[in-house]
């Protein structure tokens, strides 16, 4: 028998050795794959934890910055609404 003929027949007969998993097995593997790829990764879990924490910290920081700024404003006298008038060497304060 020639080599080509031998290989051709061998291939035909060897096709019976192909592994055919049962449909239930295939369904089980697909379910396991879906379960694993849908599961959040460690990075996603950490992000889910840290995102609200970071948002809270940012809100606190903004509130603190606004509070400090308004405190500074009142200490610098910008809140004073009186007007000083100088007339003939004398000064008069109006409004407070």
């Amino acid at each position, binding site marked *: 028998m020639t080599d080509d003929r031998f290989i051709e027949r061998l291939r035909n007969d060897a096709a019976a*050795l*192909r592994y055919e998993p049962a449909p239930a*097995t295939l369904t089980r593997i697909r379910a396991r*794959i879906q379960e694993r790829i849908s599961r959040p990764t460690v990075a996603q879990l950490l992000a889910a934890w840290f995102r609200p924490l970071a948002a809270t910290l940012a809100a606190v920081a903004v509130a603190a910055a606004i509070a400090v700024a308004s405190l500074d404003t009142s200490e610098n006298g910008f809140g004073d609404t009186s007007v000083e008038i100088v007339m003939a060497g004398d000064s008069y304060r109006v409004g407070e």
Partner: protein
Amino acid sequence: MDSDERALIERVQSGDTSAYDALVSHYLRKVVSIAWNIVRNAHDAEDLAQEAFVKAYQSIGRFRSGEPFGPWIYRIVTNLSLDLLKHRRRVRHEEISEQEQAPRRDEAHVAAISGEIAQRIDEALAELPEMQQVVARLNLIEQFEHREIAAMTGISEGTVRSHLSLARTKLKEKLADLYD
């Protein structure tokens, strides 16, 4: 690659896990069969197929658009299966070789072999050296071409041809009574 597959891959890349199930469903049977033909154990083959698809999913972002998915997933499962063979070899080395290790076969393996001729071929293949056996099984049973086997296993096409040529000679000797 057909446009359906390209569309599925793009959907997976944008985070659609249900699109991945369609890809898995299309390739799973072949992927399990490749793994089984290398590791010769149904349970391991199923685990390897699962692992290969999860690994492919995790790096789908790096998958080049327009490339077919098949060769990629076949390469991943082949690499994982060859790694398992290497691991088994290492474990076997570490074991005390007083008892001869039984070949890793299972009931599914026996059930898969229908007919006396197929059984004889399987036994003849099992007697080949490891890499010759892997290459011969991928070529004869899974019907992959030399070029595809080279891409899957990471060995050169010339080496694939050489393994196949040696395997063919040995198989012809062992199965002479069947094919004369």
